[in-house]
């Protein structure tokens, strides 16, 4: 009589593999990976950002409007304004002659623009121009891709181990940041647009008049925030700033934290050759004027230019804390976002709550498990022990499966395991009840076992496929923790099918082979 058949070998291999995969979670010596813990168990932050990529389209249109105006000027063509209105461009031309010239420029230099209407109104000719739909789509997509890249760079520099950053849908970015200690700081850094510009202060404009809404054409009102280190009070200082951007952050090569003579942190920036050249020129042309350093529409400082600055180096001061200066340097180095982002979903779990969740989950798993083991032993006696062995192996298989597939264990995932413990004995119960029935009809132990397994197999399959379908649908539609639940539920079903139909049967075969008696403890 063969004691070890192919089937037994298969069972052993599966169990050993599960143990090998599971071990590293409990010992640190094994070369394999541990089970991944979800953010709800290890603490961390889950963010969904929406890229306002319509703003990228608008920016592109405004750039185009500027270029058209430049081109018109170069051709000495008169116009009464080219500007963006919503997501199209509107141009006003005074006469037929300029209209012809305008049309020529558009068809030659801006062939991607589509003229949607040209109407004569009060003697002037109005044009409406649009970007083709697929081009707008491309700009939007590029804005999202670029935002993802920028945010990834910032997160990498911020130092988060194993972040998960991915695009979700058309304009959403999903971020999973495990083990974040200071969620607000991370949020600030991620959400910063980091649009750095150098613009001149409008020295002729009066602040008081500007505050009353009396702004010169080509200037705007921006504020500088100053925090008193002693009292913590913040004051806002208004500045009238010329709209023309002399230099922006796109020409930066480096940004790092430095200290001034009072050991206050400041951010030193360095331009590339082109940037350095421009910086050299504008500082040379504007000596004794005030140059404002503006980041995301906030004035950081507006020093008076004392001398021409060659070499392309500058500093941004603005009574920073150390962390603020560090984060600003990171944001500048990683580049600006092509469009602003808003946080539309946030879930943060503190590490202590995560640890509590694991502890409580494990306690309920243990208590539930022990109660089931006791119940099965009392109800089915020795056969109950086989079911119990199957149950324990089931849990090992789920754990091994989680580690092998590098799936993530979440709190609902632990609930899924607990639920599977309750349901895992089901397959054994179906089989045992069937065996009992067969025994009542007077079959021998071995015949009853065979008939029981054979008749129960299809029923068990049917019953479990439906739950498996629910698990697959959940996996497809669920996010984060729910996906974790679907994974453990699905693994649990597959594991319990294996343990009930293959493992239990092998054990019964072994037991019945040894015994010649027809008695069966069930």
């Amino acid at each position, binding site marked *: 009589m063969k004691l070890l058949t192919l089937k037994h070998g298969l069972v052993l291999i599966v169990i050993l593999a599960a143990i090998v995969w599971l071990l590293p979670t409990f010992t640190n010596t094994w070369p394999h990976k541990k089970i991944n813990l979800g953010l*709800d168990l290890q603490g961390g932050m889950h963010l*969904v950002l*929406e890229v306002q990529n319509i703003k990228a389209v608008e920016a592109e249109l405004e750039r185009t409007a500027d270029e058209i105006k430049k081109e018109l000027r170069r051709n000495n063509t008169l116009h009464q304004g080219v500007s963006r209105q919503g997501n199209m461009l509107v141009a006003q031309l005074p006469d037929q002659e300029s209209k012809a010239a305008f049309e020529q420029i558009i068809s030659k230099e801006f062939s991607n623009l589509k003229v949607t209407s040209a109407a004569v109104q009060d003697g002037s000719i109005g044009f409406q121009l649009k970007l083709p739909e697929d081009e707008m789509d491309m700009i939007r997509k590029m804005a999202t891709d670029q935002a993802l890249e920028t945010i990834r760079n910032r997160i990498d520099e911020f130092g988060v181990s194993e972040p998960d950053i991915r695009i979700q849908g058309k304009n959403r970015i999903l971020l999973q940041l495990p083990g974040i200690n200071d*969620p*607000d700081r991370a*949020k600030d850094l991620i959400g910063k647009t980091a649009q750095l510009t150098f613009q001149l202060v409008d020295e002729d404009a009066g602040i008081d008049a500007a505050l009353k809404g009396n702004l010169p054409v080509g200037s705007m009102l921006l504020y500088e925030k100053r925090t008193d280190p002693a009292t913590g009070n913040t004051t806002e200082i208004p500045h009238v700033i010329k709209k023309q951007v002399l230099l922006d952050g796109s020409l930066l090569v480096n940004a790092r934290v430095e200290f001034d003579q009072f050991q206050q942190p400041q951010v030193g920036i360095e331009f590339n050759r082109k940037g350095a050249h421009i910086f050299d020129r504008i500082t040379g042309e504007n000596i004794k004027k005030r140059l404002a350093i503006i980041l995301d529409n906030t004035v950081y400082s507006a020093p008076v230019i004392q001398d021409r600055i060659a070499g392309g180096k500058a500093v941004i001061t603005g009574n920073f804390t150390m962390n603020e200066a560090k984060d600003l340097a990171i944001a500048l180095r990683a580049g600006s976002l092509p469009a602003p982002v*808003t946080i*539309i*979903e*946030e*879930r*943060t*779990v*503190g590490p*202590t*709550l995560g640890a*509590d*969740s694991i502890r*409580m*989950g494990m306690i*309920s*798993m243990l208590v*539930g*498990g022990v*109660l*089931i083991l006791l*119940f099965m032993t009392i*109800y089915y006696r020795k056969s109950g022990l086989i079911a119990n062995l199957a149950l324990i192996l089931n849990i090992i298989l789920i754990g091994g499966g989680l580690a092998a597939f590098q799936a993530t264990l979440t709190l*609902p995932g632990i*609930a899924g395991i*607990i*639920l599977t413990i*309750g*349901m895992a*004995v*089901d397959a054994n119960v*179906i089989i045992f*009840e069937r065996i*009992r*029935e067969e025994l*009542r009809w007077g079959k021998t132990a071995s015949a009853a076992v065979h008939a029981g397994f054979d008749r129960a197999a299809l*029923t068990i399959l*049917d*019953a*479990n*496929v*439906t*739950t*498996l*379908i*629910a698990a697959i*649908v*959940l996996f497809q*539609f*669920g*996010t984060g*923790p*729910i996906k974790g*639940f679907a994974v453990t*539920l699905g693994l649990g079903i597959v594991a319990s099918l294996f343990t009930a139909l293959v493992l239990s049967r092998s054990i019964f075969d072994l037991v019945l082979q040894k015994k010649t008696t027809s008695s069966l403890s069930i």
Partner: protein
Amino acid sequence: MQLIKSDINIDFLGKRKIAMVFSGLLILASIIGLVIHKGPNYGIDFAGGALVQVKFNQDVSIGQVRDSLAGLNLKDLSVQDFGEGDTHEFLIRTANTGSEGTGLAQAVSAAIEKGTGIAPEIRRMEMVGPQVGDDLKKQALLAIFYSLLFITIYISGRFELKWILSGVTAGAMMAAVYFLSVINVSMPILITGALVVSLALFWRLRLKYAMGAMIALIHDVFITVGIFCIFDMDFSLPIIAALLTIIGYSLNDTIIVFDRIRENIKGESDKTGLPALFNQSINQTLSRTLLTSVTTLIVLLALFFLGGEIIHNFAFAMIVGVVIGTYSSIFVATPIVLFASLKRING
């Protein structure tokens, strides 16, 4: 050991009228609950909003927390004692999404520290924007719809070997959804429409097992949602997961009984004996049905009492679902299959 005697023969189907009244009452209570509470009590996952869970290291009253937050102008503010025993934990909920400015958690923490003099520990913070809430709601309903779709295909295919017919039903279900989505009706109406269409088709195409199983599923899900509503419990993403699992579990139970009916019906030509045969099938599988329900309930109760607050509602939904699901496979699903089978002889 045996809980159920092997020669047991309870007349379950004889009590189907009582069961119908009982189910009717439960459904009525669910409808009343839904009407009174104006639909399910959506948590922030679906309604949008924010919650902050805070913990203190000493005794703080709920009133103190509420008073110190008064200055923040939070819309629909609610403060709830959270966690069991003396853990000094509170759950603060608001309809604000906090996207306007700096961190809501920070603001809440600062306000509480100012108001009570004790700095709280921020244990958890969740914010869901309104658009995301709508998306999640839509996804959840789609998940329920698709699992019903796939499960019905499987049942009618597997039990009546009518894969083509079940495919037709599935097609009709999807067509109904497509048609209703074109005229832009809300998701719940869409799903209801799809279910009505498929039930009508099951009846017309005589897919009695699928019909019985599906009515039982709708019964279970509806009553579970109703009970949640009556107790005014929060409807969140994990609850949707629980509902889908209940669908799977309830079906699991139903299928075991159906399987036995099919096995017993083989070679049986005399249709007048059907009621007795159905009853016998329920009795033969009764000890398995009860045993599995008991073991599942044992672990769910352990989870309910020991698993912590966050998993509490999920465990509650599962417990309700398992009890209702066990009841419905005996008293709802089987009588419907019997009714449909008898109709077939008469008609």
